C-alpha cells in the first residue's frame, strides 16, 4: 500500500513529562504497569508468529501433530529447507510429507531480486527527474500535469492491471522479466510525490551558485541536486524495493511459468501443491521464511530509517 502524508514539517518532539498521569512518580504506578503490559502483548503478537514460523520450518512434518504446542522444533530437521531449494529427490520429499512436485526457490529468489531491483532503480531515478521538473523548473502546465500524475494514485491497481495485462500480452512479453517490470519502470506516483516534497524543501542556494557558474540544469541535477538528495533517495529506494518484493497481483498475472515466477507467486503455488492429506507445513513455513529473509535483513540494517520514514517524511 502506498500512503502519503505530509513531509516532515513540524511536530517538535518534547518529552512528555508533566500532565501525564502515566509518568507521575508514585511508589507503584499501576497505570504505567498496565500500559507496559498492553504494549508487551502487542509486541508479542507482532513478533512471536515469526518465531513460530522458524520453529515449524525446523520441524519434521510427521512429528508436528503430536507436538503441536511444543515451543521447540518437533523432531529437528533441515529437510524442509532442502525441499524448498530443490535439494531433495521427489521420493525423499514425499517421505517427509512434501508434495514431490519440483519447486525451485533459487529461481524465484533470483526473479524477485531482479524484479524488485530493476523496478526500484528505474522508478526512483526517473521519478526523481520528474519530481525535479515539478518542484524546481518553471513551465506552463506544470501544476496541471502534476495533479494528473497524483490523480493516478486514486485509480485502483486492478483497474489498470486488466488493460496493462492485455498490452503486455499483445507485446508478446508475458512470462518475461521485461513484461514484469515495465509498468513500474518509469515512475510510481508515490515516488514522484515523495521526491517532489523533498526538492520543494531543499535550499536553492547551492543550485543557484552552480547556475551562476554557468552550469546547465542537467549538470546541476546530476552533480548538485542528486548527491544532496542521497538520504531521501535511499529511503525511497528502500520503501520501493520492499513494496516490490511483496508485490503479488501483477506478477501473478504476468509471470506464471516456472522461469518467470517471483517468490510471492511461488509461495502460492507451493501452498496449492500440498499433498493429499496433511499439508507440507514445515516446507511451507521454510518457504515463507526464505521469502521473508531479504526484507528481514534490510530491516535489521535500515530499521531506524524505515521506522522514522513513517508518518514523518512521507510514508509507505
Amino acid at each position, binding site marked *: 500500500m*502506498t500512503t502519503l502524508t505530509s513531509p516532515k514539517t513540524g511536530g517538535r518532539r518534547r518529552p512528555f513529562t508533566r500532565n501525564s498521569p502515566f509518568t507521575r512518580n508514585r511508589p507503584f504506578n499501576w497505570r504505567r504497569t498496565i500500559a507496559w503490559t498492553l504494549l508487551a502483548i502487542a509486541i508479542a503478537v507482532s513478533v512471536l508468529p515469526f518465531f513460530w514460523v522458524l520453529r515449524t520450518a525446523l520441524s519434521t512434518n510427521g512429528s508436528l501433530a503430536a507436538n503441536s504446542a511444543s515451543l521447540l522444533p518437533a523432531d529437528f530437521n533441515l529437510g524442509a529447507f532442502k525441499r524448498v531449494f530443490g535439494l531433495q529427490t521427489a521420493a525423499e520429499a514425499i517421505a517427509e510429507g512434501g508434495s514431490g512436485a519440483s519447486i525451485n526457490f533459487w529461481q524465484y529468489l533470483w526473479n524477485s531480486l531482479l524484479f524488485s531491483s530493476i523496478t526500484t532503480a528505474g522508478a526512483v531515478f526517473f521519478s526523481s527527474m520528474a519530481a525535479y521538473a515539478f518542484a524546481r523548473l518553471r*513551465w506552463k502546465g506544470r501544476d496541471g500535469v502534476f495533479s494528473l500524475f497524483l490523480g493516478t494514485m486514486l485509480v485502483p491497481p486492478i483497474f489498470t492491471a486488466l488493460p496493462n495485462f492485455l498490452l503486455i500480452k499483445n507485446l508478446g512479453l508475458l512470462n518475461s522479466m521485461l513484461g514484469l517490470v515495465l509498468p513500474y519502470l518509469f515512475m510510481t506516483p508515490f515516488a514522484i510525490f515523495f521526491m517532489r516534497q523533498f526538492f520543494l524543501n531543499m535550499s536553492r542556494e547551492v543550485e543557484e551558485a552552480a547556475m551562476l557558474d554557468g552550469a546547465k540544469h542537467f549538470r546541476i541535477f546530476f552533480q548538485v541536486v542528486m548527491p544532496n538528495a542521497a538520504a531521501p533517495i535511499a529511503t525511497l529506494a528502500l520503501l520501493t524495493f520492499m513494496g516490490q518484493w511483496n508485490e503479488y497481483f501483477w506478477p501473478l498475472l504476468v509471470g506464471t511459468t516456472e522461469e518467470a515466477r517471483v517468490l510471492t507467486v511461488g509461495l502460492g503455488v507451493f501452498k496449492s501443491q500440498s499433498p493429499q492429506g496433511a499439508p507440507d507445513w514445515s516446507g511451507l513455513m521454510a518457504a515463507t521464511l526464505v521469502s521473508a529473509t531479504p526484507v528481514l535483513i534490510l*530491516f535489521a540494517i535500515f530499521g531506524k530509517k524505515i521506522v522514522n520514514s513513517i508518518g514523518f517524511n512521507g510514508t509507505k
Partner: protein
Amino acid sequence: MTTLTKQPGPGLSASSGPRKSRKRGKPSAGFRGIGDLKIALLFIAPAMLGFLLFYLVPTVRGIYLSFTEYSILGDPEWIGTRNYERIAKDPLFWNALGVTSEYVVINIVLQTALALGLAILMHRVAKSTLIRGALLLPYLMANVIAALLWFWMLDYQIGIINQLIEWTGLPRVAFFGSEQWAIPTQALINTWRHMGYTALLIFAGLQAIPNSVYEAASIDGSKAVSTFWRITLPLLRPVLVLVLVVTVIGSFQVFDTVAVTTAGGPVNATRVLQYYIYQRAFNEQDFGYGSALAVILFLILALVAFIQMKFLRGNQSDLD
C-alpha cells in the same frame, strides 16, 4: 494496493511557519523569465511515457472495455451498457459487495481502535525506535506471507491458536473453513499486518500536537479522560481521516490473502470484489465483464475517498 490522496498541506504537519510550497512558483534570481519548458520536457519524458502507457491509456481503455464483450481472442465488441445491466442482476456481484463490505467494516473498527490505543501507549510510555520497529515488522511482510503464516497458526487440526483455544475449554474454530468465520479471519490477518503501521501514523500525529495545548488544558483543570476526548482526538482528526481513507481504500482491494488461503470459499464466503474480478477476467476470460466490475470498484473507492475528505475535513488541520 495503493492509494492516497493528499496534497502537501496541513495534515500531519503542525505549524512550521510559512509553508515552503508557497514559494515554489516564485521566480528566483538565477532562473530565466521565459520558463524552462524544453528542459522540463526532457526531465519528465520517461515518467510521462510510463504515465501515458501504464496509467492514462489503460484507464481509458478499461472504461472502454467495460462497454464491450471481450474474451481475449478476437476483438472487443461494443455492447453498450449490457455488462452493467448484467452486474445489477448478478447475485455473485452482490455477494462480493456484501462480503467485501463486511471485511472493510471489521478492519476499520478493529484496526483503527487497536492502532489508536497502541499509538497512545507508545506516546505515553515508550518512544523507542526498537519498540516501534517490532510493531512495524508485520507490515513489512508480504500479504502472502502474512496469509500463510496465519493459515498455519490457525489450522483447525494442529494450529497453535486452536490448541490454545482448546486449553481454555472452548471448541476449536474452523477459521478458514467455516462460512461464518472466513471473512473475520481474513480481516484479522489484515489487522495483524497493518496494526503497527497504522499506530505509527497516529503516533506521528500525536507527536505533532504541541505540549502547550496539554499544559493549557491542565491549567484549566482538565482531567486526562476529558483531555483525550476534547483535545487529543479532535486535534488528531486529519491523521485519523487519513488512516480511515487508507484503511477503507486498501481493504476494498483485498485480494492476496484470499487468493492464497481460501480462494473465494468456503462456497462464496470470501469471494471478495477483487477476487471476483480476477476470476471473471482471468479464469473465465470475460474481460468486458471484469472491466465493468473494476469500474464499479473504482467508483466505490472514489466515492468513499470523496465522502471522507469532504465530511470529515481530512485535509484541514485545527492546529493552524
